[in-house]
């Protein structure tokens, strides 16, 4: 029986927004193609094709999905004009560097979906959207928002800022920060034990997250329980570094066999 619940996509479309300097998107696309034999297409900045009117609309939508209180589920209200103006400046500048606002992830996905998918669900393309912005999802268990590296769906969202901010750093790091030690000093002390903004390892690490997006598209399950597999769902920075860079293998035998199946398909 096939592991695939969807038809194999004709192409993997890679979209982006904001400053993604630490990500070599071509190298990442080549990796996906080599692993799956599915061609990739770099589609560039997601907002570039849209009119001023549409940018205005999208800016207002984005300003309305900011998570202000991480302990309360978002109730969307009319945003301030200053927030709409900020979003307009942000999405009109493809090299925008500033991040830090937490957006409601599911609604962010919906906004991006409306921009990249026309006329219903597109299963012929696996769409992956890379952003330097931060998004989170509501956790019903502890009643608060959690920042996320990725949100898989149609399209899948991957945040390079989330990669730094979402998986937890070593516990001592936070204790020392609470005691008032400057973060810059802590970064020196814990150098190499977590990913930082502009980290040279970003592209290599994100290859695994992009593969998770593709597995979600194909099988409905992006994750693996094997911490040596690149599909491992990491919650700690140390787990991210292990599964993506230092694992015993790229993919566990089960997922490797699915990739073999994919590469051996009739094309």
């Amino acid at each position, binding site marked *: 029986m096939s592991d695939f619940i969807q038809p194999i996509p004709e192409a993997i479309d890679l979209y982006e927004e904001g400053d993604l300097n630490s990500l070599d998107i071509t190298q990442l696309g080549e990796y996906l193609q080599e692993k799956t034999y599915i061609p990739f297409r770099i589609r560039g900045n997601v907002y570039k094709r849209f009119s001023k009117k549409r940018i205005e609309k999208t800016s207002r939508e984005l300003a309305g999905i900011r998570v202000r209180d*991480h302990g309360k589920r978002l109730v969307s*209200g009319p945003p301030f004009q200053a927030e709409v103006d900020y979003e307009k400046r942000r999405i009109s500048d493809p090299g925008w560097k500033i*991040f830090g606002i937490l957006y409601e992830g599911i609604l962010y996905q919906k906004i991006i979906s409306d921009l990249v998918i026309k006329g219903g669900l597109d299963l012929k393309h696996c769409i992956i959207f890379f952003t330097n912005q931060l998004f989170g999802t509501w956790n019903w268990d502890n009643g608060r928002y959690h920042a996320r590296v990725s949100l898989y769906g149609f399209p899948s969202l991957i945040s390079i800022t989330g990669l730094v901010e979402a998986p937890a750093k070593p516990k001592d790091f936070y204790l020392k920060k609470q005691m008032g030690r400057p973060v*810059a000093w802590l970064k020196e002390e814990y150098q190499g034990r977590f990913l930082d903004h502009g980290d040279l390892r970003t592209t290599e690490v994100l290859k695994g997250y992009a593969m998770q997006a593709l597995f979600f598209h194909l099988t409905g399950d992006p994750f693996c329980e094997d911490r040596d597999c690149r599909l491992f769902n990491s919650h700690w920075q140390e787990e991210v570094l292990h599964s993506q860079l230092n694992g015993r293998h790229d993919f566990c035998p089960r997922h490797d066999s699915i990739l073999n199946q994919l590469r051996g398909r009739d094309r």
Partner: protein
Amino acid sequence: MGDLDGRIREMAEKKHIFTPVSEKEVTRAIVDAFARQFIEYVESDCLIIGGGPSGLMAGRDIASKGVKTLIVERNHYIGGGFWIGGYLMNKVTVREPGQKILEELGIPYEKAVKGLYVADGPHACSKLIAAACDAGVKFANMTIFDDVVLREGNRVCGAVVNWTPVNALPREITCVDPIALESKFVVDSTGHDACVVKKLEERGILKTIGFGAMWVEQSEDLVVEHTGEAHPGLIVTGMAVATTYGLPRMGPTFGAMLLSGRKGAQVILEKMKKK
């Protein structure tokens, strides 16, 4: 030195070092100087609520262009949290490019690590206060913000203030009505409290969001990016920006306070030019 010692001895022999002045003259001098300034500044071009780093920076930049500027501060001391860094340690940090403002103000600093600079809190704060004074900013300290003055279209055109001690006592003892100050622009530089913005919220004119709990490296950038006019006539600077727009908390660094104050000043100066 010999000459000075001689003069002091000579004056002591005359029984006076300082010129004899009666108590009533001292009182008259205080009241007269205070009243003249107060009467003049009952109406100003720019009224800044809060004398912390962002308010001082905004005031300094605005007043240096010849704009009549008054800073209202609820404490007797000016400077807010700029005297002290994190955890009661009196070293303040700024991230690149905040050190350029330190240079401009003649505040000595040293590099901590790449992109992070540290200065002596008392030195930095006193220099910033002095720069604001030198630029022509006047102060009403021990004065607490009570309410906003609104005009047509709910434009903010001033503030209602009172003595801080009056506000601190029970109302049964101190039925002292506040007074109003008028201004073309009001700046909310009251830190996390965002007192002016909150007052508009109380009146149902504006809705604040409250600052977020999350800490991210870029919150300083976001504060500067969101600095500006939040409501007609009301400019928000510093940490009040974070409260107004629900931006993430930031660590004990001051670069954003200085740059936000500067941006607030630019916004006001541009609006004045257009008028």
